[in-house]
């Protein structure tokens, strides 16, 4: 197998891992504030389709990415209204949001199937511009790829080093105490959901605008659920989410490498790897409180009247 083929595999693994990192970070923020967003898959689909549509209409991928982010934030606001304002069941609300996303994205994307777009500009990886064209084309990444790991650090800083992040984590652990300390857990959760939606939208936009550069119905193919698994795998920590995304990329790369080198391991079985590893991590750390979920995850805040 030629080195070029191996590099190609690595390149495509990076592309598929980056969108997942953004999505996972978004879900980390949601869940840190105490809300499980099971509708993530639907949010991603609506963001990916509308971002793609805006890119086709305006011809400007940046506009596409920005509108996908905004739509992601707005989709999460629906969930916020149901679970924060109306105190609805989080799992049911999330699943309803998922079905909403299935339908809405199909409707939005319908007239854009097969459309051509100009993707985000690619910048060659540092110091590689001297290499032959074939190599640099494989290792030219768009700005979102370069920004992915810094974003993980930014989210870590936001959650663990700012007052806002303290509020988010407090709301996720105990909403009543948060209220007693003079913050409104409802407002905090809305904010966290909006930030999480922006990140999910960013990941979805990267998928449809930068990676596949097209729209097909149900193109996210379970990435929302992979992200939910990776959040658990990374134990609700933004920096460990990088490891989770790398793991997923690695599985993708491994699978492609095996295929091209003629080894027969079913791609279907390799696809189960992120879930199986998450399950093992859960079992290993299961009884340990230090590694457990935010204490109020999934609970309804009844208010302190």
């Amino acid at each position, binding site marked *: 197998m030629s080195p070029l083929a191996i590099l190609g595999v690595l390149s495509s693994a990076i592309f598929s891992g980056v969108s997942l990192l953004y999505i996972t970070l978004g879900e980390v923020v949601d869940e840190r504030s105490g809300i499980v967003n099971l509708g993530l898959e639907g949010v991603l689909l609506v963001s990916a389709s509308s971002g793609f549509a805006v890119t086709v209409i305006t011809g400007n991928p940046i506009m596409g990415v920005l509108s996908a982010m905004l739509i992601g934030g707005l989709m999460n606001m629906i969930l916020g209204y*149901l679970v924060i304002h109306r105190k609805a*069941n989080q*799992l049911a609300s999330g699943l309803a*949001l998922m*079905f909403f996303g299935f339908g809405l994205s199909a409707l939005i994307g319908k007239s854009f199937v097969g459309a051509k777009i100009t993707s985000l500009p690619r910048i060659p990886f540092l110091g590689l511009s001297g290499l032959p064209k074939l190599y640099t084309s494989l290792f030219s990444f768009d700005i979102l790829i370069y920004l992915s790991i810094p974003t993980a650090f930014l989210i870590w800083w936001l959650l663990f080093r700012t007052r806002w992040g303290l509020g988010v984590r407090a709301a996720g652990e105990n909403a009543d105490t948060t209220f007693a300390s003079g913050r409104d857990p409802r407002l905090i959760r809305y904010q966290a959901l909006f930030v999480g939606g922006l990140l999910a939208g960013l990941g979805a936009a990267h998928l449809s605008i930068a990676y596949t550069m097209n729209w097909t119905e149900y193109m996210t193919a*379970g990435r929302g659920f992979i992200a939910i698994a990776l959040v658990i795998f990374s134990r609700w920590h933004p920096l460990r989410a990088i490891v989770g995304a790398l793991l997923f990329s690695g599985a993708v790369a491994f699978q492609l490498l095996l295929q091209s080198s003629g080894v027969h391991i079913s791609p279907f079985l390799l696809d*189960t790897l992120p*879930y*199986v590893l998450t399950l093992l991590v859960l079992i290993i750390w*299961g009884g340990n409180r230090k590694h457990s979920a935010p204490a109020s995850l999934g609970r309804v805040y009844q208010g302190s009247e």
Partner: protein
Amino acid sequence: MSQMVKSLSRTTFSSPWFNTFIRYLLVTLLALFLFGIILLITGKDPIQSYKDILTSTLGSAYGFSEVLVAMIPMLFTALAVALPSRVGLINVGGEGQLYIGAAFATWGALTFQNQPAWILLPVMVLLGMLGGALWAFIPGYLKAIGLVNETITTLLFNSIAPKIVGFLIFGYWHSAMDTVKTANFVPAARLPAFFGTRVHLGLVIGLALLILFWFIMKYTRWGLEMRAIGGNSQAARRNGLPVKRYLIVVMCIGGAIAGLAGMAQVSGFYGVLLLNFSMGLGFMGFLICWLAGGEPIGILLMSFVVAVITTGGNMLQLTRDLPYAAINILLALTLFAVLARPNFFGGKKA
């Protein structure tokens, strides 16, 4: 998580029947109105679209039979959530259990295809239940020993199951012509259908299970003990109930029922095992159970309503040139409206 359980069990049907009826009517109208706006934006005529949905589902005997067909797997997957919820377990894993049940049943159909129907079908039913139960056993066991929450594990298992089915179809079972599905089942492996429609024996099994569920919960010692565990598992344990065993067994039975949904789909509906055939039936079951407050009659009604909506989607696709998935918007808007519990009566929330 414990609060979710409470809201999952019977909040909806506690208010008087008439108020409940009016509430649901208004909620449905609200959802229809919102979907109508979306239809208008996309340039479709909402009135005509709704007429299409009604005439294609409830307007003819054939349409009605198609609604019943769509309803069958939902009865099972909703029941697969309702039963575990009685002991406080949240089974979000119907989707995965359905796939594994379908895979086990398919194995039976392919292996024993020379047997007569009266042997083959019961074997497939048992295999389907076994598959679903096995898939629910691990989450149930991990929950019972207090290690991992069943909500998380059942969700993970949902994502694994379709890939195992894909592995089996691709690697071993696919037909000579096609790599995404098995060969058509022999006639003996098909659940019999009635009156020349596609309504199959699965409907009878589903209804029987609903009645059995109602009977067990209301009139047997098991039902009483399950309610005790669901109400306060600590107290139940101190009173000598085998809580762990109950959690595991009930979870497995829930899984077995979801596995039956898979068996009913491959044997009764498709007659073949397809890649990714379910498209969210398990999740739909969770939502139906939630809408129904976990009550058998509610499950029957809600499955019917959801089946009308999804069946109507087929007609919209044909006549209104909408993607089939678009009907999910109407479904979701209805759910949103119920979830938001608007206060039509200005009084306390239901």
